[in-house]
């Protein structure tokens, strides 16, 4: 709500700069979006009087005007506006002035004729086109005759009035009005403004209830009241009213409509004016019927739904209740008799209708947040009085009432002890009572308690906590003490799961992977990739975009998106990991998916930058495997880690992917992304792993005990052999472990070779074996015997040729 500082000053004694007032409002009531003074940034704009005018010799639309700007000599200004005429008082931008949009105006020549400035339209001096009256929309603005020539224009257009734009929270609908804002500021600054109750001069010869009848379902309209004014003369509003409206962001229309908008601003009570003679019979507030249509004031046609609430006459809808009036009954220049409506419409209906028709008006915004039941009649009365004053006519006697709403005012009892208990203050009951006095909430002390009556204008307040908020904000949040919670002690520690999760991130970062956070919502196709178990995808009912429709069932595809983004930006080397949830469903009928913690990583290109002393090789399967293996080892999970070749993942290279299991439990996979998938993602050769982090968390961990280091020296023996290419390292190591004897403590593969000097279909494998006896020094004979046995078994079992 755009609030005029000058309007507030009519009620309150305020003399601080607008910026300070805004800060006070922010700290005490509602957020302030901006404080603006329309004249800021403008320079040398004065009222000019066009003394005479002649046609420009070289143009069919330009005129040469002689304009008195209060100086010794009139200025010669060329003007192209269609409505320019001699005798007008106009906005003149003097030479070296600045108009809207920070444009500088200089002396210039227009088609050979000197022009000493510019005669301006309202939108040229910074007015939004939305608020410029239709009368001045296509030409220059013309002042009333009594405006003094040569004076700066700002005051005469309300441009010197600071406008404070309030961003009102849903609970403070009362602040969407000048009176509501005045009430709150009165409490903040401890003032007692005088807000007069309007009086109405009715004409005894006319009876409103004889002129029109109205019915309303009180479920749709808690209050519905009409007044009738006959014999009005439609004309533009006086300048002060137009200024008030445009400063609030509302376009002035005519004296009747402007009055309803003025009352809306003042009371926060939306009104609507109908041309009485266009209404066919009586008025009813009802739900729209299927198939009904209504053209609203903005000339858009709306197909109505039975959920919409309308005002209708005997024949058809004449307004979308509380949202926008109908074109068919609007006030026009010939209107003589008007019906003014003041009502409280059901907020839920209004919200739904405003959403359905994308019509968020000043009126609907207020009905959605609530209306002061005490103001319905006052607003109506003041409106008709103003109409009579500005447009003439007779006010019919009486108010046509279809429904009425006078809620019982809540009385809430509080104690100082309870207020202090919640706020941490040490206020006395008298001090609290003073705050409610300032707010004009009647209150009565009964011993330790204070019974507070909440006025109708603050329909947001229901319980003691609401009152404590009033106390806190008027007392001032800045004045609250600063303390930390005391009381019973608690211990702040991470759970073992949380510690493991934190450790797992640190391990992965330590081996060179950077943490990524990707989107959990992805495409259906990507959600289904790299599936580690059978699962149905979880889809959103109404996704926002095609890229984010389905919850991921893997982390790798998101990381591949990240790699693709990097490649697209010329970054070839990417090494990332991510921890997060995947979402599994056992069947399509299941609505809520199971959320499982996963961890995944990708590498493509070089892990470190190549340099003069760093001859790097691009990432390969064994680098990724080494990382994932180190990760699992560091987590200290009990049991053997095993890798077995798998072609079960259609998105992985069938010959370069391994399932990973720990102590027989499958926990994930590591391998190369299938070249076709890589091509699809537009990424280079990429390696990835994904593990079920939840499984890693759940698996038993090694005891925290150390193995004593053997005191006796170890003995090393190297063995080199030629085996079939198909023979795996696992098979060789298995034989060694099985037949290695009690003292074989470590097996290290140090060379794999295929090629020259090795027959086709064969490869050379070389291992270093370490023997150790923890109890005594090993004798050569013992080692030799054990070593010979291994050689023999390798030859016998794997057809190995020992070299």
């Amino acid at each position, binding site marked *: 709500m755009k609030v005029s500082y000058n309007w507030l000053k009519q009620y309150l004694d305020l003399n601080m700069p607008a910026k300070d007032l805004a800060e006070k409002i*922010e*700290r005490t*009531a509602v*957020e302030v979006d901006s404080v603006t003074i329309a004249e800021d940034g403008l320079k040398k704009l004065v009222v000019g009087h066009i003394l005479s005018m002649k046609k420009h010799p070289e143009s069919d639309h330009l005129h040469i005007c002689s304009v008195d700007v209060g100086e010794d000599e009139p200025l010669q200004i060329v003007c192209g506006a269609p409505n320019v005429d001699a005798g007008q008082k106009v906005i003149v931008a003097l030479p070296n002035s600045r108009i809207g949009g920070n444009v500088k105006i200089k002396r210039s020549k227009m088609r050979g004729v000197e022009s000493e400035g510019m005669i301006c339209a309202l939108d040229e001096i910074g007015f939004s086109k939305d608020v410029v009256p239709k009368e001045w929309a296509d030409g220059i603005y013309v002042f009333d005759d009594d405006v003094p020539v040569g004076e700066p224009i700002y005051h005469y257009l309300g441009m010197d009035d600071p406008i404070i734009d309030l961003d009102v*929270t849903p*609970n403070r609908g009362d602040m969407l009005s000048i009176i509501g804002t005045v009430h709150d500021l009165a409490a903040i600054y401890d003032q007692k403004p005088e807000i007069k109750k309007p009086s109405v001069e009715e004409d005894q010869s006319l009876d409103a209830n004889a002129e029109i009848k109205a019915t309303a379902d009180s479920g749709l309209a808690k209050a519905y009241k009409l007044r009738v004014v006959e014999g009005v003369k439609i004309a533009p509003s006086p300048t002060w009213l137009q200024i008030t409206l445009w400063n609030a962001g509302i376009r002035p229309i005519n004296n009747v409509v402007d009055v309803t908008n003025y009352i809306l601003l003042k009371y926060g009570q939306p009104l609507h004016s109908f041309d009485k003679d266009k209404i066919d019979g009586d008025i009813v507030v009802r739900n729209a019927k299927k198939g009904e249509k209504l053209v609203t004031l903005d000339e858009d046609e709306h197909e109505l739904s039975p959920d919409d609430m309308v005002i209708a006459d005997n024949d058809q809808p004449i307004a979308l209740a509380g949202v926008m009036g109908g074109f068919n009954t609007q006030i026009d220049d010939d209107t003589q008799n008007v019906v003014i409506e003041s009502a409280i419409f059901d907020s*839920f209906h209004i919200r739904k209708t405003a959403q359905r028709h994308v019509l968020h008006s000043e009126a609907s915004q207020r009905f959605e947040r609530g209306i002061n039941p005490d103001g319905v009649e006052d607003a109506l009365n003041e409106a008709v009085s103003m109409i009579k004053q500005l447009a003439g006519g007779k006010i019919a006697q009486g108010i046509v009432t279809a429904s009425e709403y006078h809620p019982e005012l809540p009385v809430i009892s509080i104690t100082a002890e309870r207020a202090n*208990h*919640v*706020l*941490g203050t040490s206020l006395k009951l008298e001090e609290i009572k003073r705050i409610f006095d300032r707010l004009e909430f009647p209150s009565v002390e009964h011993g330790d308690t204070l019974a507070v009556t909440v006025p109708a204008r603050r329909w947001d307040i229901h*319980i003691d*906590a609401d009152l404590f*908020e009033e106390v*806190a*904000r008027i007392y001032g*949040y*800045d004045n*609250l003490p*600063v*303390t*930390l*919670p005391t*009381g*019973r*002690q*608690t211990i*702040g*520690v*991470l*759970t073992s799961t*949380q510690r493991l999760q934190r450790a797992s991130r640190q391990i*992965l*970062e*330590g081996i*060179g992977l*950077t943490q*990524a*956070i*990707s*989107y*959990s*919502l992805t495409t259906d196709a990507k959600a289904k990739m790299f599936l580690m178990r059978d699962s149905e995808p*979880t889809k959103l*009912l109404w996704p*926002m*975009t095609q890229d984010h429709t389905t*919850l991921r069932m893997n982390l790798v595809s998101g990381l591949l998106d990240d790699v693709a983004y*990097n490649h697209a930006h010329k970054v070839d080397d990417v090494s990332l*990991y991510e921890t*997060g*949830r995947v979402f599994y469903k056992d069947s399509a009928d299941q*609505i*809520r*998916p199971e*959320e499982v913690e996963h961890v995944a990583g990708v590498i493509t290109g070089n892990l*470190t930058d190549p340099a*003069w*002393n*760093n001859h790097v090789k691009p990432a390969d399967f064994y680098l990724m495997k080494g990382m994932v293996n180190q990760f699992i080892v560091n987590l200290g999970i009990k049991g053997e880690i095993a890798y077995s070749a798998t072609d079960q993942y259609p998105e992985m290279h069938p010959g370069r992917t391994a399932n990973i299991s720990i102590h027989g439990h499958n926990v994930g996979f590591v391998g190369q992304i299938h070249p076709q998938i890589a091509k699809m993602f537009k990424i280079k050769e990429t390696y990835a792993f994904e593990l079920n982090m939840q499984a890693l968390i759940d698996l038993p961990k090694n005891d925290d005990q150390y193995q004593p280091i053997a005191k006796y020296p170890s003995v090393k023996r190297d063995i080199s052999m030629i085996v079939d290419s198909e023979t795996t390292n696992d098979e060789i190591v298995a034989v060694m472990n099985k037949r290695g004897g009690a003292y074989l403590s470590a097996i290290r593969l140090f060379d794999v070779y295929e090629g020259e000097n090795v027959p086709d279909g064969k490869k050379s494998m070389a291992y270093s074996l370490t023997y150790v006896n923890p109890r005594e020094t090993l004798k050569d004979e013992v080692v030799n015997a054990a070593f010979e046995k291994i050689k023999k078994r390798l030859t016998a079992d794997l057809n190995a040729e020992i070299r």
Partner: protein
Amino acid sequence: MSLRDKLSEIKEKGLADIGQTDDLKALNEIRVHLLGKKGPITAALRGIKELTPEERPEVGSYANKIRDAITEAVAQHRDQLETIQLNKQLAAEKIDVTLPGKPVAQGQPHVIQQIIDQIVDLFLGMGYEVLTGPEVEEDKYNFEMMNLPKNHPARDMQDTFYLSKEILMRTQTSPMQARALEKHDFSKGPLKMISPGIVYRRDTDDPTHSHQFHQVEGLVIDEHITMADLKGTLITMAQNIFGDKFDIRLRPSYFPFTEPSVEVDVTCFNCMGKGCDVCKHTGWIEVLGAGMVHPNVLKMAGVDSDVYGGFAFGVGPDRFAMLKYGVDDIRDFYLNDVRFLNQFSKRGN
């Protein structure tokens, strides 16, 4: 020439030879020659039998002294030569220490993770527990138990990703308030928890909106928790994350699940409170929402609101990171450009 003189002569010549040698190998040869079985001292001592038995011990001991002197001289001279040789070697080994070191692989936490960890660590230190909950949530926890009944304006269908009428992607971490309140046994002590996690909104991604972002919920419920405690807690957090120079201000606001509700501003990062374009010339930047837990929230979770009460707050780590580092596009956090990710401090603050 007496045997003694002969030995003296051997000594003088020997010491002179040692002194003149500038080569370790030659020095060793000299040592072996002088002190060896075929050396001049041994040879000279063959003449000892010519001496009287009284003279023999004296000459013998003199010979030993000479041996010791030579050994000592060789050792000394060897040290000298070795030092010279080492210095020569060191001079030859000189390298260009300005050449770059060998690159080492080092990953780092995501900047949002850094902010979350910092918040988590701070609150652990103040005795809070860390709770996490489901990202796919029931309408009941996400809205109803947060005092947002079905037709409440603040729970617009437009803003929420639904999976069904009752199941949705959580729009806030606040449902963890309801879940924690339901479970907590207040006879065992107060509830002090924070809950970090991912939340989802049905928004179009742009520089300031993301359909996925993070929140950290905080909740403290006990018999006597005040709004002053909330203020103190928020100041502690702001100063811990942003720095001691930062102040906060509370402004009235509205959330259905707190009453009173406040919005919290911190000193503008850009101008430190002087007023600039970033803070719309107010000197303040809005960073989080908070308030005293609404009695309805406590009641719905089965907690006696006459006995227990407290505060809650919700922090956006994405927004914190944007403010702290001047990131102007929230989408950067989820695109994972490694050049972006690697810029942020690895110090853990």
